């Protein structure tokens, strides 16, 4: 494999993705900022005052890490699935398929684009959160590594969704029926210690729970789960999803006849 060629190719895809995100900023950056502001106002400020404290923190402080992680997850996923499926739909994906860059470079370039949008929106939501509450970062390395790895996981998942998608409906099914429920049930708004033992066990089968809690641990220093488990889950997901992406690309599923 020609490493220099692939490095330039990956940089090109990343640049293309950044240009795309900034070109349609009204679709990519503004909506999550508005949505999260509403979450902070309604759940944090209005309802949160009546809820009181959660796991030793005031409710606004407790949900802030979860909401930041939620925006990172949905934007990383959404960026890759819409960009790659859009390229398939208008067939300009052929520009990349005829070129000598490796399949891994195509995947890495798009995943990097998803991560950058996820982190950009995550940073914006963090700034918004700081208008409503105080966030002292307990473990900066854990916070940064968890958000980065989670963003990679969901960018890879978005890539697989885009590979299989044949129409625009297909790129909204997973976010609507899988991602959103798992995120809401993933400890963004509550600690699972409030749940009966059976539902606590069920919740532990939700990978997003580990990501949200590990990120919350990075900021607040409190978590429902073992942080080591979160890292294992993140690395396993990254390896499995990346391998799946490479295999699907190699076989041309959804992209080559």
């Amino acid at each position, binding site marked *: 494999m020609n490493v220099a060629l*692939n490095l330039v190719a990956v940089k*090109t895809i990343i*640049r293309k993705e950044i*240009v795309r995100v900034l070109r349609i900023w009204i679709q990519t950056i503004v909506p999550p900022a508005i949505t999260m502001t509403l979450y902070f106002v309604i759940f944090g400020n209005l309802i949160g005052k009546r809820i009181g404290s959660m796991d030793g923190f005031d409710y606004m402080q407790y949900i802030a890490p979860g909401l930041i992680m939620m925006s990172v997850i949905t934007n990383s996923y959404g960026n890759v699935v819409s960009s790659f499926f859009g390229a398939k739909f208008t067939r300009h994906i*052929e*520009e990349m398929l005829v*070129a000598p860059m490796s399949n891994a470079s195509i995947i890495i370039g798009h995943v990097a684009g998803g991560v950058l949008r996820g982190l950009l929106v995550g940073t914006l939501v963090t700034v918004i959160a700081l208008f409503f509450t105080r966030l002292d970062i307990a473990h900066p390395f854990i916070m940064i590594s968890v958000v980065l790895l989670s963003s990679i996981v969901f960018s890879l998942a978005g890539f697989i969704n885009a590979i299989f998608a044949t129409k625009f409906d297909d790129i909204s099914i997973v976010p609507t029926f899988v991602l959103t429920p798992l995120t809401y049930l993933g400890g963004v708004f509550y600690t699972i210690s409030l749940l009966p033992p059976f539902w606590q066990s069920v919740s532990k089968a939700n990978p997003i729970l580990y990501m949200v809690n590990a990120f919350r641990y990075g900021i607040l220093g409190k978590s429902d789960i073992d942080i080591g488990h979160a890292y294992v889950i993140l690395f396993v997901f990254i390896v499995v999803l990346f391998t799946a992406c490479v295999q699907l690309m190699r076989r041309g599923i959804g992209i080559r*006849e």
Partner: protein
Amino acid sequence: MKALSIKNLTKVYANGNQALKGIDLSVNAGDFYALLGPNGAGKTTAIGIISSLVNKTGGEVEIFGHSIDTDLEAAKSCIGLVPQEVNLNLWDTVGNIVTNQAGYYGIGGKSARLRVEKYLQALRLWDRRNDIARSLSGGMKRRLMIARALVHEPKLLILDEPTAGVDIEIRRWMWGFLKDINEAGTTIILTTHYLEEAESLCRDIAIIDEGLIIEDAKMSTVLRKLQREVFVLSLATEISTAPVLDGFKARLRNNCELEVEKGPDRDINDLFDQLSAREIKVVSLRNKANRLEELFMRLVKNKQSPSGGTE
């Protein structure tokens, strides 16, 4: 050196359609090669396999000696593709589209900028470099696809109906441009429905029909196979009946136009001698149909008719 070598290439789609039934093709480096065939004959499938957009079912493809099975990266580096359908990112700018394509081939920085300017200038699109592709006319989009295919300076340029829907002025200009890059050393494979285009540009020709190559030879050799030609003669003075000519069939189209069918054993001088003897003056002469078009129709028709009969 072979620019392209295809052996026993087959393609069966998931729906069972056998698009290619074992074709062999060989294109020499530096050639200007026409690949013709009716709609659905397998041309685009063959091009798709050569350029890695379609998975083959069987057979071998080598591009400048690089197998697409074992040396795909090198094989891809040799090819520039101008597809039949517009496949541009219509929301991106003209400049970005060509710059990105350079990047996908590992060409970045100043080198990419210089090449982008060179090919956008050559394709007369430099002034539109900051416009989004969606705002371009059909002919400009075609030229943008050519600039995009050339930016990595491929040794083999494949054009799948590049002048479809392009007005005559731009088409003629594109012919000149393609001739120039061929003379500069780029091997070109062209598919087109404009057989005049293939006849005037290409030195070699293959005709594909129903997934099989039914003709593969020099253009001149193929055209010599034409057994008869029909000419339309514009006459200087009106005549009321068609003259009887030895060895030619003549028919009056109208008082000023004569249609003459010439067999393979006759030449045009003979025709003019006979007309002069009858004091019929000819102002101009043209082929009734494009020669290649006539041959193409005959070959395809022959194949379809079990008796092999012609018109």
